[in-house]
């Protein structure tokens, strides 16, 4: 699952991944996407797992699911913010949860944005593509 995409999509649900990839494609965002199936893979991709693998270029934005097997989204977020190399990396939490405590905890851990997964009547995953466009084309990273 190693890659050098502009977007790192951390998501364990294959269906969701499909919808997102399609939405990005439909939105005309022709950017490489690296998909990590869980937290461990995400940390490997970001070079935060101390396994001696060479450092890869960082993605420009990380879309991070919260509820995942093995290492969950919060742990990944904590590790990202804890490492100086990734401390400023934009992280968008994407979750089906709408619980206030989940939202607050995400921001407290350093998330830049919180998206709630939902069915977009305008087109599947369109909200996601719009957010990706914002982070890739409008937002300027430090």
């Amino acid at each position, binding site marked *: 699952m190693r890659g050098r995409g502009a977007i790192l999509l951390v998501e364990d649900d294959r269906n*969701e991944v499909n919808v997102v990839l399609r939405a990005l494609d439909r939105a005309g965002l022709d950017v490489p996407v690296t998909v990590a199936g869980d937290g461990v893979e995400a940390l490997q991709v970001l070079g935060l797992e101390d396994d001696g693998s060479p450092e890869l270029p960082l993605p420009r934005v990380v879309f991070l699911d919260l509820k995942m097997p093995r290492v969950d989204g919060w742990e990944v977020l904590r590790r990202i913010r804890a490492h100086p190399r990734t401390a400023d990396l934009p992280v968008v939490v994407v979750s*089906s949860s709408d*619980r206030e405590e989940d939202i607050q905890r995400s921001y407290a851990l350093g998330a830049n944005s919180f998206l709630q997964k939902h069915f977009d009547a305008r*087109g*599947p995953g369109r909200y996601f593509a719009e957010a990706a466009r914002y982070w890739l084309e409008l937002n300027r990273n430090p």
Partner: protein
Amino acid sequence: MYNDLVEEENFKNHRDFWPPLLVAVLGISLSLVFWALLVTERREQILHSTRETAVQLNATVEGELEQQIEVLQGLTEIWSRFGLRPVAEWTAHVDHQVDRLAGLDGVAWLDLDEPRNRMALGTGGSTHEIELDADDVRRGEGPYLSGPERDASGTVIYRIFLPASTREGHAGVLVARFRVAAFLSSVFEARAPGYALSVFWEGEEIFSRGTPSADPWQQWWRVEEAMVLPLGGEWKVVYRPTPALAAARLTVLPHYLLVAGVLLSIVLAVVVHQLRMILRQSRFLAATNRTLEQRGLELEAKVAERTQALEAAVTELKAFNYSVSHDLRSPLGAILNFAAILEEDFRDRKLDPEGMKLLARIRRSASRATELLEDLLRLSRAGRAALTLERVDMTALARETFAQVRAAEGSPEVEFLIDPLPETAGDRALLGDVFANLFSNALKYSRDAEKPRITVTGRIDDEECIYDVADNGRGFDMRFAEKLFGLFERLHSADEFEGTGVGLAIVARIVGRHGGRVGAEGQPGAGARFSFALPRRAVP
């Protein structure tokens, strides 16, 4: 356990009469002994002093008798010396003696050798014939006291015989006659005035003075003292108290003491009984307290146990809720997404219109399931979230909420009228949900009206603030009013008006959690009015 204690207590009562009874019996016995000792002691004192009086008095009488004899002896000497004299001379002499000798009735002299020579002298100048028989003559041989006898009139007398020889050497005898009553009453006269006296001589009562007390309780006070007569024989004197003396000497103090002692014993017994009762009661209470304490501890343990179980259940429910919110959402979302993708991607290709229709149904159903899920989660939150009470400006809240709902529903023109509403104390977010659901319903059911209108009013009652949300929409049949606030209850089909039947259930739950109540009234085609009332409480 408690009943056991009570029964044991009752059982004890039966055999617990002895201690106070014992105290009473002991106290009364002691009082009686003390009383008896006191009474006996006093009786002995009284009898002792009576005896002393008797001895003294008897001695006085004896002395008087001796004096009589002495005087008479003197007479015999005079007789010896002077012989027979004229009667007048003797009479004077005897009279003189009679003054000194109480009870002396008369004196006679008899010459034994010459019975002609005899003289009888009465007292007070009167002369009585004194009969002398052979026995009298014999008695004249020595000093002698005869009696008891009676004279011709029946008066009890005694006589003293003394030998007296004449100058001429004739043997003679002097006889003096005394009336017992006169003698004794003169001797006793003022002596021992408190006593009633009876004098017996050889079983015959020869004298009595005063009336003894007739009280049967005072009959013990009786002293019998013999009086030895100088010339042999004895008189028995019985000393008894007159009622006056008895009353003076026999105070009722010992009896009072006895009564007091008995009363005190009874009081003491009662006190002992009461004390025992109190002691027993306190022991009983202590035991009960211990039992209750123990029961309290058991209860506490049970409560802790149950609380733990409840907490576990709540935790489980929360986990379940979380799981539903995530795990059910994802597959539903996937269905929706892929149905949409299918529709988009194959619109102009392999799927014919019928296929598209079926696909649309799949999407609608999944949408509905998702909505239902979301509503259920909202309902669950409404029931579970902690209430944060604060001052809520209901007018502003209603306005804001209406604006949000209207924007979300994208509703066309609607007239929104709102009166100033009473403020209340409640959870702002939850009360916002109440308005949101009511407004959403009002918008939904009035969208067919020619000029949709929503009116919000409020008023303050005695105990509650009442808020009404009325619309001029479809309305409903009052027969179904009760069902409105039930979960999943709907009065219209999903085709006619979308919805899950959860909104009003959420309203009812939130209002219920605020301690309030909900109501609805309507008429088919004439609009509906939903109201909720919140209890008036101090606004923080």
